[in-house]
């Protein structure tokens, strides 16, 4: 429990998000392009962190389904920024596992001229810490 609490604190710290600001309007979920792929929905992310249920979050599919498009961050009326929470949770998990999914050396061969820069950044966000 206390470690879950610590983890929740850690997520808040990494993301800079205060989940208490959430007014539960659901605009994040309303706006999320990956909503259907997710087991835990963006708005739930906020309450999971709030309630310290980090294990569930860490084991969720959602963590890896989030596109980091930041639409929720952009549209959240309360500046809660659920996308950053997800990002932070992902980071936490990766750190815990001590893994890093993407090495910079691998980039050149993966590079495709048509690949949008944003995707590359997004990939970095997700696979490398």
């Amino acid at each position: 429990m206390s470690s879950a609490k610590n983890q929740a604190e850690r997520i808040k710290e990494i993301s800079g998000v205060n989940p208490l600001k959430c007014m539960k309007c659901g605009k994040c979920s309303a706006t999320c392009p990956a909503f259907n792929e997710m087991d835990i929905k963006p708005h739930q992310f906020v309450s999971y962190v709030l309630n310290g249920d980090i294990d569930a979050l860490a084991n969720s599919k959602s963590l890896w389904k989030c596109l980091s498009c930041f639409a929720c961050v952009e549209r959240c009326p309360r500046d809660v920024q659920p996308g950053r929470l997800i990002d932070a949770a992902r980071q936490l998990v990766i750190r815990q596992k001590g893994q890093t999914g993407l090495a910079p050396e691998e980039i050149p061969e993966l590079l495709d001229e048509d690949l949008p820069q944003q995707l590359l950044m997004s990939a970095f966000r997700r696979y490398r810490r």
Partner: protein
Amino acid sequence: MQRIGVFVCHCGSNIAATVDVKKVVEMVAMEPGVVHAEDYQYMCSEAGQAKIAEAVKEKNLTGIVVCSCSPRMHENTFRTAAKRAGINPYMVEIANIREHCSWIHKNVEEATEKAVILARAAIAKVNLNAPLFPGESRVTKRALVIGGGIAGIQTALDIADAGYEVDIVEKTPSIGGRMSQLDKTFPTLDCSACILTPKMVEAAAHEKITIYTYSEVEKVSGFVGDFTVDIRKKARSVDANKCTGCGVCQEKCPSKKAPSEFNRGLNTRSAIYTPFAQAIPNVPVIDRDACIKFKTGKCGVCEKVCQAGAIDYTQQDEIVTQKYGAIVVATGFDTIKLDNYDEYAYNQSKDVITSLELERIMNAAGPTKGHLERLSDGKHPHEIVFVQCVGSRCSDNRGKSYCSKICCMYTAKHAMLIRDKYPDVNVTVFYIDVRTPGKNFDEFYRRAVEEYGVNYVKGQVGKVIPQPNGKLLVQGSDLLDNKQIFKEADMVVLATAIEPEASVRQIATMLTASIDTNNFLTEAHPKLRPVESPTAGVFLSGVCQGPKDIPETVAQAGAAAVKAIGLLAKDKLTTNPCTAKADELMCNGCSTCANVCPYGAISYEEKEVNDHGIRETRRIAVVNNALCQGCGACTVTCPSGAMDLQGFSNRQIIAEVDAICR
């Protein structure tokens, strides 16, 4: 040197049980300036007050210190007693040896020692007290109401009914305000015009009310009871005395492409126009930006068709200067601009509208003659989505942090009206919370759901995507089902946040009334003085103070009127003598004090002074005693100490500090 009498109260045993009052008397008798010291059971009693009077007479006292309960309790009692005994009431100081001493300490020695110190501080202060005299200022028995909406009209009517002259200044060509744009009102669903128009007519006909429409407040000077206001009557180009309001000019006007402000720009109007049929006064205005005559010099159709000869292209703006005793601000609200909310596609699709625009569409006098139709193609909609909290409750900087308060109810109203009139239309409302505190409000909302089958979805809309087929794809969430919803709608109605009318900023500056970060006018006290501005003589009516619905607005309008009447009923105002005062010879004229004065009580004069033989003209701060409330902000901001507060002067407070620390 003062001749001070010290009176130590036992307050029964309240003080005497913990403080050795005899010892206090003995100790204070040795203080400089003290010529008399005694104790008594109850100083506040008739007998106690008589003792004070007696000592004043016998010992020729010039100052009084009462060691007793809190000054908040009996300062006035003893001031009055002093006045009766023939000394200035402001020569009295209280040492609070009950609440601040006997009641909180148990050790007699300690409490007695503290009581002596508190008494010494009061004595040290009285030694520096000077008689103060409350000033008087006259009251002009006339009120100004800024804004001619329902708030302004109601305030004006109430003040006028009490027998005082009232002027309404309205910047648009007609009074009526936002309420005149509404179709129906909640929760009774009665027609807005039906209840508003009679009030407009009454105001126009009232012998005590003068209405200045198409006019703006240009300048305000003076202070409570004695404001002087310049009102700019913008050139109407129509002689109001001659115009019969026949309307022919509007019919014949060849320029009909100006967007109609009244209809929120959903259709157009002629260059010469009255905003709506029931406008008061029923005198049109020429919009000089749209008028062909003004633009090209050619045309003059209205002049030709006007049988009354009322058209006057040469009319100029006119400044009316008038004196007022009280000013009521009733500037109302507008909806926010939606430029920051691209996700709702408001600027992309004509079928995404605000609720206020829907009011106009639903209204028989509106752009669609009251038929519910899509503005893009005039087709009858079958699926309508309402989005709540658009721009309200946003803590990011795109919208407003507050709840606009009225949206939940008017959305329920709209949904209900649509379902009633067009049962074939499906109505979905996306909400975050439904807030319905108010008499019959929740019942109203439940009826919309239960009787009219309005589909309420708990969740927000994330995006509205205009489709090639002309429909609007609404992407929202349903938090209860934990689903994302995609709905094809024909129309989307946005419950847009409201904000104070933009002009209120300027008006607040002119009135030196304070304004909060959202541009709402600040009340003098959020709970106890909700309809007064901190600036004396300025009152607040309606939404300019905070979001409100119609009944609340009317109630506040009445309350503001009563406060104004209370002021106008007085012949003279007594001013608090504990006001700031600038030492002419020390003042630098730097304006720093005026910058912190919350009441605009400080002005500057070019004044000739005689500074030890040197005569020169200097810029000097002058405090208006009628406006100054005595907070002292200016005294600390003044580096030289030229500005001081009477009754709490620098030297007095320092004397107290010294007495306590010695």
